[in-house]
């Protein structure tokens, strides 16, 4: 049964890597923020699967919710498209 969990976490790790690459290469900074939010949310699921529920709660709340909002305030104050 634990091989099922192994396969699930392998798929999630692959998508985390793809999301990180999209975050680095995007010209539109809103897209970069959304991709980094995907990385954070998937990382919370990964912590959950590795049986660390307190770390998963902190990751989902701080990184998934608050950091996204703070980054949005930052690109609202500066500019959306990278030169």
């Amino acid at each position, binding site marked *: *049964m634990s091989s*099922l969990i192994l396969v*699930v976490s392998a*798929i999630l790790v692959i*998508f985390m890597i*793809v*999301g990180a690459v*999209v975050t680095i290469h995007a010209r*539109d900074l*809103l*897209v970069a*923020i*959304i*991709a980094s*939010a*995907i990385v954070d*949310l998937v990382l*919370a*699921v990964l912590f*959950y*699967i590795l*049986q660390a*529920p307190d770390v*998963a*709660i902190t990751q*989902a*709340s701080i990184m*998934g*919710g*608050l950091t*996204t*909002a703070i980054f*949005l*305030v930052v*690109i*609202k104050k500066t500019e959306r498209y990278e030169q």
Partner: protein
Amino acid sequence: MSWIIAIAIIVLGVVLTLIRAMLGPTAADRMVAVDSMTTITTALLVLLALYFKRYIYLDIALVYAVLAFVATLAVARYMEGGL
């Protein structure tokens, strides 16, 4: 065996929304995909809590649903020019 089928169907759904989030043409497409991904992942977390047989894991699903809602609302407010 029945566990494998149920979890595999839901993980397939997560993978499809993540693909749409990676290649969506506009930022709105990506955000719609991320919003659906968080709801699907909440269901996956509830199911995995029963698989691991830990009551505390349900709290993570609750926090995940609440905080992802905050991130979605923040991105929507940014896109219509508010915030």
